Structure formats: C-alpha cells, structure tokens
C-alpha cells in the first residue's frame, strides 16, 4: 500500500482548499449574523414593554420609554447591528433582558452540558448504527441483527418528544431506576442521551446499511472478494470505507439534527444545556440570548461541516481528486 507519499501530497494540496473553506465558513457566519439580527429585531412587539410586564403587570408608558432608551432600542437598525456585532467580536454577547446577567457567561456555563449530552447521544447513535448495519449486511438472516434492526427502525419512527415522555413515565417514574431529569446526578444524562441517540441511530443505520449494500456491489469490492479477502474483512474495511463519504455527509447532517433535537430533549428533561436556554429565551423574547444562541450554534455547526468536508475528501480516494 503506497499510502504515505499520497497522504503528504494531499495534505499540502488540501491546505489551500482548507483556507477557502475557512473563508467560506466566515462568510456564512456573517450572513447568518445579519439574518439573526433581523429576525429578532423585526419580531413584532416591544421588548421593553414585555420585559417590564413580567409577573403579569402592566407598565407605565414612561417606564417603557426609559427602558427602551437604556437598552438602545431607539437607535437606527444599522447602528444597532454594528454595535451588536462589535460587541460580539469582543466576546460580549450582551446582557439577558430577563435577569440582566451577561449572556456569554451563561452560555459558557451551559456549553459543557450540551456537548456532553450530544457526545453521549452520538456515541449511542453511531455504536448502534454501525454494529447493527455491519451485522445485518454481513449476516442478513441472523435473528439478533434483524431484531435489533426492527427495534431501532421502530423506535426511530417515534419522534424524540414521545420517546422522551414515555421514558420519563416508564423508566424514571415507573421503575424508578433513573432520574426524571435535571443534572443533579451523574446518571441523569442517560435518558436524554438515549432519547436523542435513538433518533439519530435510526437515520444513520438506514443510510449506512444502504451504502454498505451498494458498496458491496462495487467492482473493487467484488475484486477484493475475488482475491480471497474474507467477507467480513471486505465489509468491515473496504465496503465501510467506500460507504464512508456519504456516511460522513450524513453524519454531519445528523449531528446538526442532533443539535436541533437537543432543543426538544433538553426542554423535556430539564437538561441545563443551551437548547433549554434557547427555548426559554424564545418564550420570554429574550433577544440577546436568542441572537447569541443562533450565532454560536451556527459557528459550531459550520466548523463541524467544514471538518466533515475534509474527512469525506480523505476517506474517498475518488473525491480526493489526485486520481486512483
């Protein structure tokens, strides 16, 4: 296998595209920032009045006017955008309308919870998907693989909010084995991660299986088999690698969906992550929080997608471009 020279060469040639991709990512973020800003700013309703109406009380017009001025809501839109962008670039995401606490600090304190949840969910999803996919493609008639497949497909057909409600009722309340939510104990992450992972597993599994099956029909795999490589090795190494580009593309989509799903799951399980923060902020029209959340999630996802791009190019020699 003459792997090394090719990898060095492609690493060098990949540098320029990597820069281009970074530039593209930044451009995307700029567009997203304008969009986010407009979205929250053009939302009807007066944030100043809504802030003062908390607790169900009706503020005086004078108070509303003063708070508007204090929050800088009276300035023209472009000025407000530039101010906001300038602050963001300096790492200041503003203060929450709800409790005047700095948004950046709150987000920083919540990121680990979301990452931990997403990581565990991904591990669950990928493990389930890869194990079952390989097993069922390798031995299509084995009973265990088929049962696992059926269960995952069936569970994947149920949206996370229903799985979550059922898990809370059965596992947490009924059996009393795991906490119903929150982050008070180290095992509290299990149910939300499982809920989130299950949804991802079904999607991944279906695509991985399809890709594996079509990969096993590819000429080079057929050739490998003809050369006497064992079936297991063919599927596990050659076919899996051939199926990888599409799977990586899918994985990035699934990861993005995982983040979106986390919004529901975190709300359901009172998991103190970013998703829960965002949902409650939207409900309270806490604009600085919504803006910060959308922008940061966009930045994270853009990073993820860029990495996925690079990985996909590495995994499939045909797309890598330097010729096989």
């Amino acid at each position, binding site marked *: 296998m003459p792997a090394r020279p090719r990898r060095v060469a492609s690493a060098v040639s990949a540098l320029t595209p990597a820069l281009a991709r970074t530039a593209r990512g930044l451009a995307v973020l700029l567009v997203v920032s304008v969009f986010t800003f407009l979205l929250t700013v053009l939302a009807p309703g007066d944030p100043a009045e809504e802030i003062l109406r908390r607790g169900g009380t009706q503020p005086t017009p004078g108070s509303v006017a003063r708070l508007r001025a204090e929050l800088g809501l009276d300035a023209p839109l472009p000025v407000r955008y530039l101010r906001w962008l300038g602050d963001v670039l300096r790492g200041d995401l503003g203060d929450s309308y709800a409790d005047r606490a700095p948004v950046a600090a709150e987000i920083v304190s919540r990121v680990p919870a979301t990452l931990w949840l997403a990581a565990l969910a991904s591990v669950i999803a990928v493990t389930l998907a890869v194990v079952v996919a390989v097993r069922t493609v390798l031995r299509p008639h084995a009973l265990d693989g088929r049962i696992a497949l059926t269960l995952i497909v069936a569970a994947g057909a149920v949206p996370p909010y229903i799985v979550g409600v059922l898990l809370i009722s059965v596992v947490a309340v009924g059996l009393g084995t795991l906490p119903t939510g929150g982050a008070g104990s180290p095992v509290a992450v299990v149910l939300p991660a499982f809920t989130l992972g299950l949804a991802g597993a079904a999607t991944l599994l279906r695509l991985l299986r399809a890709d594996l099956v079509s990969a096993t029909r590819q000429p080079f795999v057929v050739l490998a088999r003809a050369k006497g490589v064992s079936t297991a090795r063919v599927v596990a190494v050659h076919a899996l690698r051939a199926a990888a580009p599409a799977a990586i593309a899918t994985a990035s989509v699934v990861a993005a969906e995982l983040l979106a799903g986390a919004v*529901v799951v975190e709300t359901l399980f009172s998991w103190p992550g970013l998703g829960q923060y965002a949902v409650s902020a939207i409900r309270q029209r806490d604009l600085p929080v*919504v803006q910060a959340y959308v922008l940061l999630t966009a930045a994270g996802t853009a990073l993820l997608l860029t990495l996925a791009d690079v990985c996909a190019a590495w995994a499939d020699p045909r797309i890598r471009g330097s010729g096989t």
Partner: protein
Amino acid sequence: MTRRGGAALFAAVVLFCLLTPLLSPHDPYRPDLARVLLPPSAEHWLGTDQAGRDLLTRTAAAGRASLLFALTVTAVTTVLGSAAGAVAGLARGRPDRLLGFAAMGALAVPGLTLALALTGVMGAGYGTLLAALVPLGWVSCALAVRTAVRQAAAADYVQATRSIGASGFYLLRRAIAPQVIGPALTVASGDTGRMLAAATSLSFLGVGPPPPDVDWGGMVNEAVPLLVAAPQLALAPALALTVTGLAIALMADALRGV
C-alpha cells in the same frame, strides 16, 4: 414484498385519516363540555378528549393535517434540493461553491430554534411552518444528489462515455440520472418522516397549525398534562405517529431495494 408491506401500511394510515372524518358522525373540531373524557363506548370508540371531542375522529383529522403537511414540505424540498444538487454536482465550480455556501448556511442555523423564532415574526400558521421547515429540509436532498452525481460522473463507465464524446445532457440522462434517482428518492422518503417529526415537534412545543386545525404533535401536547388521568389521549396520536413513521421507513427501505 417489502414495497408492498410499507406501502400497504402507509395506504392504510392514509385511508384511516381521510375516511374516518367523512364516515364518523362526530365533528373532530367541535368541543362539547357535557361529554369530556368519556371512556370508550359504542358511540365513541376511543372515548372523548378533554374538550369532549371524539378521540378517534380527531386523531384521524389530525393525521390528515400532519400527513398533508409533511408531504407538501417534502415535495417542495425534494424538487428544490434535487435541482440544486444536480446543478452543483455537474457544473462544479461556482454553482458548487454557491451550493456549499447555501447548504452550510442552512445547516448551520439551528432549525427548530429558527422555526420557533420565526413564529414570533410571522405568527403561527402553515406559512410559517413552511418557511421554517423548507430551509431545513432541502439540504439533505441537495447534498445526497450532489454526491451521487459526482460519484456517478467519476465512475469509469461515465468517464468512458464522456471520452467518446457524449454530450453533458446525454450523460445526465442516460448515465448519471439512474444513479441519482435512487438516493434522491431515498432521501425524499426519509425526509417525509423527518418532516413529519419536525412539524409535529413544533406543534408539541406549542407552535402548530392555526386552530381549529391540529396535528398529532399538537394532540400530544394537549394530552401531556392528562398523561396520568387519561393516557389514551396521548397514546392515540403517538401510536398513529409511530405506525406512520414505521410505514414511511419501510417504504424508504423498499425504494432503495435494500
């Protein structure tokens, strides 16, 4: 076999959703406070809900709304996504970079959060739901089609056909399209399930179709406070969603010929 299994199940769901409201003597949207939370009976097969509406009829009517909406969104996203993916995959260069840019933007913005925020700007309704879910849905199809087009274009036989001077259109139609339709349909069938889940998730979070319309997510949302007292209220729409999701998943597998 498979095709028939998934399709038959899906057809059964569709028939249930379309026919029940027509055949049932009950109005799925009309509350009746004198008949709330009745147990199942000959008149109300599944009983009535918290506002005295027939649960069976309401589940079917909600299914009609859920399915119609999921299919509409998927149709839009598949057409948009396939077109974008095919152009980008074939032309490469600038269109490809543009697709990459748009796809990254669309994927980067957190979909459900965006949808929730959008309802603040546009108000709840089908227009908002469409505007929120289409940007979320077209990407997967576009990326799948682009990858398929590229892989097909890179395949030896296509290169060979090109080397003997075949036109781009000929290549697209005869050599590449057959390789692409599979992935596109696969993604589309999967997307129907995803859109069903996404739209009902939004309803579950309280941002659904305008009343009196309701979808399955909205029904679950209404039923959650009564989960202990009357679990059947959540069970009916949840079960309907599960069966539908399963049918769609089976059909997707069948389409791929797995």
